[in-house]
């Protein structure tokens, strides 16, 4: 189990770095998905550890949330691309001082 949780940590960190470093909005969204997956993995691991199905239920809910998030996120990306012709987050910085 230690290994699984470690795997989860590593994947999560990769997701964080991806979200932090990449400038393509789509890749950032993917990195967020990766983080969610890492969390799911931790849930599954803990569920297995306690012999209890509750973690699986949480995973299902997280998957649902992820699907919703992607739907809205990609909707934003599409309208962003239509309006600004870019998917670079650095270009989307109007809301500042």
């Amino acid at each position, binding site marked *: 189990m230690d290994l699984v949780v470690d795997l989860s940590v590593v994947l999560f960190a990769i997701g964080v770095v991806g*979200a932090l470093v990449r400038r393509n909005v789509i890749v950032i969204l993917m990195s967020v998905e990766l983080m969610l997956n890492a969390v799911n993995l931790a849930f599954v691991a803990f569920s297995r550890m306690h012999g209890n199905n509750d973690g699986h239920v949480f995973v299902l809910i997280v998957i649902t949330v992820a699907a919703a998030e992607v739907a809205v996120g990609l909707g934003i990306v599409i309208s962003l691309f239509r309006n600004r012709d870019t998917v670079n987050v650095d270009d989307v*910085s109007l*809301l*500042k*001082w």
Partner: protein
Amino acid sequence: MLNEGVHTSELLRLIPLFPLAAAVFHGVMIGLLRRPLPRAGVIAVSCGAVLLSFGVAILALGELLSYPVESRVLVDDLYTWVGAGRFVAEASLLFDPLSAVMSLVVTGVGALIHVYSIGYMDDDERDDKGFQRFFCYLNLFMFSMLMLVLGDNLLVLFLGWEGVGLCSYLLIGFWYGDEWNAYCGSKAFIVNRIGDFGFLVGIFVLFAALAQVGHPTVEFREIQTAIGLLADRTVAMPWGGEWKLLTLVGVCFFVGACGKSAQIPLYVWLPDAMAGPTPVSALIHAATMVTAGVYMVCRMSFLYAAAPGASAVVAWTGALTALVAATIAVAQTDIKKVLAYSTVSQLGYMFVAAGCGGYSAAIFHLGTHAFFKALLFLGSGAVILAMHHEQDTDKMGGLARYIPKTHRVFGVGVLAISGFPLLSGFFSKDEILLSAFAAEQIPGHLWLYGIGLGTAVLTAFYMFRVHFRTFYGECRAPAELRSHIHEPANTVMYPLYVLAALSVVAGLLSPPQLWGDLLGIARSNSLHHFLEPALSRGAVHTVEHSVEWLLVALAVSAFVVGAGLAWWMYVRSPEIPGRIRERAAGLYRAVANKYWVDELYDTVLVHPLVAVSDRVLYRGIDAAGIDGVVNGSAAAVRALAARGLKYAQTGLTQSYLFFMIVGALAMLGWMLRSS
């Protein structure tokens, strides 16, 4: 909760329910839906509601009378209003003989005045909304007044107490287009608030003391049983010395009563309250609301009986008020002002009785006063209608020729209030004077009696003065107005007839023992016997029949003197008043200007208060202090943000993410610090 000898009756909730429903209905129609009803509909709803209440009150009285004397208490528990630990206040209604008399007077007179208002308000130039608004307020007042008299505990009573104050304010300022009316309404409300403050303090002190002895309650019958535990308690007053706790409570309550019932020093609002429509003056400022103080003192009679000091304060304040108000009334020319001061004076009478332990006499006078004073007000309203809203008696005179019916019913009222033998006022005033005469526990009770007698002379004088100046002599009205003087509509007149009849016979329904024996009326003193279980006996001293006859003779002679003087001065030789005015110019000015009390209050209280509020509280504390802190903090934040913080908002999503991650890691590190 004491439940021996208590009956439950769900009739009671219906009594205040009908006016409430009508008021809410009107309110929704004009306030929310903005669809005023046609007048006929308004009349049907409002008058119907009050008549229904009156009917239910009679039914409840019948039920009450069906029980033996010692268990004549009806209770209707609605729901638990406040439940906080050991303190529980039920929203419940009480119908004992005292409440019964009060609610019958309120609904009965109220119903008559509702009918009268139909005719009186009919020529109101405003739109239909005003008509419905007027009846909405009237119904709301009826509801509040009924809650006041039916309340089973101090809180419900206080609810009604505040409610009637509010309605009084709304109705005095009903024609708010005129700024003076609005001012009068505010004055009434503010002066009442001062009294209410005393009343509230009294409630708190009483409750705290009761809680200390293990009876945290506000319910009347429970207070009554527990009051004995407080008899010996004393309170250190801030100016040194010790008062008996009950005296303090009684005085505090009486402050409230002073406000509501217009006693010295808080009487100043009532004459100004005449700015409202005349039915309002009759209903609220003569017959019902202003008697709330008297009712409250009688309701708490067990407390006053146990606190002679407070009773003395009540009696003496009442006596002084009666005299002062009567002297002011002598010199007024506005017909309604005279009646207003007369009301103040008569309320003083009632407090004299209540202070002297004659609670049933006070209630008796309350009832008869409601009839004849309502009659007088409504009669004056009829005169005012006839004169096209002219209130000054200087511009009247000789109206008996134009409006004979009004003249006759008004005359009945004058006779009744002046104490013409065998009319209602005669009996009730007699009882008050008798109780003052017999009240040996009050210091200077004979002086009280003397003041009362003098006031009786003055009462007869000023009432006949008004009567003569209005209906006799030369007509001083302008010629073009004179041709338009006419008798008012039937809806105005019929209530007058009913009230006139009541003013005549009400006394005979419950004559004193003395007269009962003489006239062969078996049910003498019936009101007293009926009220007895609900009131405390106080220290009532009996007097010899021979002495009593002497007192009666004195009272009759007071009437004769007062009436005769008025006839002499205003009918036989009308030049005399002018001569007196010249001879005693100073006295006359003092009286005519109401002893400059309003000006005194303005100078001593109002102006300094306003000045302090404006300069210190508003400009000093609020504007400079509190607003300064608020605006200053905003300005500080803005300055800080503009100089530095705004650069944290880069607009770059990933920098936000970075800071978020730093924060999350910091939290994580803090959570893992032990491991």
